[in-house]
């Protein structure tokens, strides 16, 4: 967080993007939710997010600072990079959840392995066999793989539903246990996602 005073007029800083006294652009803060002026919640109104993104772009974009002081031009570049990165993260529920996990210290940024959901172990084994056979030119497994794709897509939808209810749980309680559950769901979802794209790729070929 920024401390001290405005670089331009030395008015005490109040953690706003623009100095409340002289209106100069300040060195931007980095927390995405605060940056967008949104509550720290996982459930988020996407239309509102886009509206804020456009509004802030109009205020901060380097195109608006071509003829301003070098300092403001630098801040504009920095602020817009944060804005763009933030928009990319916040509008995607998975990236948004990962971001909150990191913010809350549940994540150190190292990539986690996508875990095989235990209830899927047996089927995954069979699907992998079928994928192998299809690659070897055996078309008789096509039907089985189509079914696998449908099953996996169904699981994805189910996982997304669960994720959303855990989002609500975290937003309402700020209970770290909910975030732990979200982390587990994300790992599972990633695994299913990888599997779906592999099956889809095989079917398309």
């Amino acid at each position: 967080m920024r401390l001290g005073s405005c670089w331009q007029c030395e008015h005490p800083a109040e953690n706003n993007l623009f100095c409340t006294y002289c209106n100069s652009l300040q060195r931007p803060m980095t927390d995405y939710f605060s940056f967008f002026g949104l509550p720290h919640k996982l459930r988020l109104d996407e239309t509102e997010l886009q509206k804020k993104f456009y509004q802030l772009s109009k205020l901060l974009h380097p195109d608006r600072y071509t003829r301003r002081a070098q300092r403001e031009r630098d801040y504009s570049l920095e602020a817009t990079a944060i804005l763009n990165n933030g928009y990319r993260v916040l509008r995607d529920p998975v990236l948004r959840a990962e971001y909150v996990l990191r913010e809350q210290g549940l994540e150190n940024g190292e990539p986690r392995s996508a875990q095989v959901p235990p209830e899927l172990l047996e089927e995954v084994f069979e699907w992998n066999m079928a994928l192998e056979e299809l690659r070897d030119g055996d078309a008789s497994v096509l039907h089985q793989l189509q079914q696998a794709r449908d099953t996996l897509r169904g699981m994805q939808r189910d996982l997304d539903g669960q994720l959303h209810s855990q989002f609500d749980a975290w937003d309402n309680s700020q209970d770290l246990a909910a975030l732990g559950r979200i982390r587990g769901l994300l790992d599972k979802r990633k695994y299913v996602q990888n599997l779906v794209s592999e099956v889809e790729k095989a079917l398309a070929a």
Partner: protein
Amino acid sequence: MGTFQIDFGNTRPQRIAGIDLGTTNSLIAYMDASAPKVIPGADGDPLVPSVVALAETGAIVVGNAAREALVTSPGRAIYSVKRLMGLGIDDVTEELKLFPFRVAGAGESVLKLSLGDKTYSPPEISAFILRQLKQNAESALGEEVRQAVITVPAYFNDAQRQATKDAGRIAGLEVLRLVNEPTAAALAYGLDKRKEGIVAVYDFGGGTFDISILKLQDGIFEVLATGGDTHLGGDDIDNLLLRIALEDIATEWGMDVSSKGGAVQLLRRAVIHAKHELSTLPVTSIAFDYSGRSYRRELTRELFDQLITPIIERTLSPCRQCLTDAGVTPEQIDEVVLVGGSTRIPLVRSAVERLFRAKPHTELDPDKVVALGAAIQAAILSGDVQDQLLLDVTPLSLGIETMGGLVSKLIHRNSTIPSSATEVFTTAVDGQANVLIHVLQGERELVKDCRSLARFDLKGIDPMPAGMARIEVRFLIDANGILNVSARDLRAGKEQSVEVKPSYGLTDEQVEGMILESIEKAEEDFQERQAREARVEADTILAAVEKARQNDAFYELEETERDQITRALNELLVVYHGDDHLLIRSKIDQLNHATMKLAENMMNTAVSQALKGTKI
């Protein structure tokens, strides 16, 4: 009624020009009150062919004048240099097979082309074109043009963008922004429409192909995804037809003309002419006369379409990928905009229409629309246009080399720019003072399949045990799509020095050298031009005075007045052929002053005569 004008000195903001630096043609435009306008050259043509030639006199000529040299002295002219921007010597071997250019100084680090007995890098050649455009604008606007927005293909990589920026600097222009061509085109279309919705821009020019999908809302032009091929364009169609014609001629005449530069250029012109005709006619012919022989070949549109289908196909797969990346279906595309001369080809139009299931827009001239958009972007930067804003993306992913020759991606393609990523680096050996970071651009997993961008050397790291150093490196792609790298030593809490070694293109020192060289040249040129302009002005007044001396009014003057006029006239004639434009102008002023009374008398006579002849 007069009005008061208060001038506080340097208050009038500088005009920013918009430039389309194209493969085949280049244009310069500016924002006039409310609408963008393209500025024509001295020959009246707004399209300046992107051809640079070295005249026998040693002077550089650009545009239509240089185009003739392609045929008459092919070793002294260069065209389509845009295709060579930002490339290394190894990259161009394949490309140069199709061009009559010679690479100079093999073994040098920078690609240089021979032009007569001189050699120039592609940015220097482009700078000649930019200087011509700058001059055209300055003559038309009557003021110096120092700042510009230049357009580049959306799919240009970092080195190609940097090379374009370098060209601007060498030409004496401050390049305030590089804008992607399809985005500029969308801006030109959006200005008078103010539509909302999803727009696809299909930009098929002389040497490059781009596809961009944008969302228009609340004056924001948000690029959702972009794709393309920087080595695919009308040139490829020309080369295809040229190859066929050359083979034909070899069989018919028993003579290979492909080694004769002038003949090849003449034939190239003939096939281009046929290509243009087939945009409106069902059949045409390629006509070529050379050393007393003549070659004619009928070409139907049907056969032409068949021949170019593979080239058109190559534009369609980036389009499909772009739709997927943007997360939209063809049905969701509200408008399709066509840009670039190659979109005049009927087969291109129908292919685009089929793919996007929408009738493409062609209201604006596809050759001018990019320059018009550049002028609007220039007005956005100057603050003259405030209700619109472009949000563009980076076309290629940015990554760094990691263990085992793999690329770890830091900024993904289609990320809105400016965009940044940070990464913390450490040392592997005790007391290690340097860390070398290899930055790449591209979508593939392996270093060898991506484009090397630069190596960044983190220098002067404080000596400490291996793995203890903490250097945070920040990669930032700015609004021009160009990478900036900065580093901080987290332990010492200070800036870390970074030395950049670009893999392709020019170092800063090389660009500085070229700027100095071109400034000297520009000074000479500028002097020369000013003298020429002063002479033109002198011609006008000399002719007027000569005519006035035949007038009765001249003899009605006092003798001393007549003497004064004659003296001033002679003095002007004496300095006329010198190159001091200030002196010429002062003598013009003197002659103007001496003839003031004469002009007044003539005017009065003319008025009274006119009144006499008028019945009231």
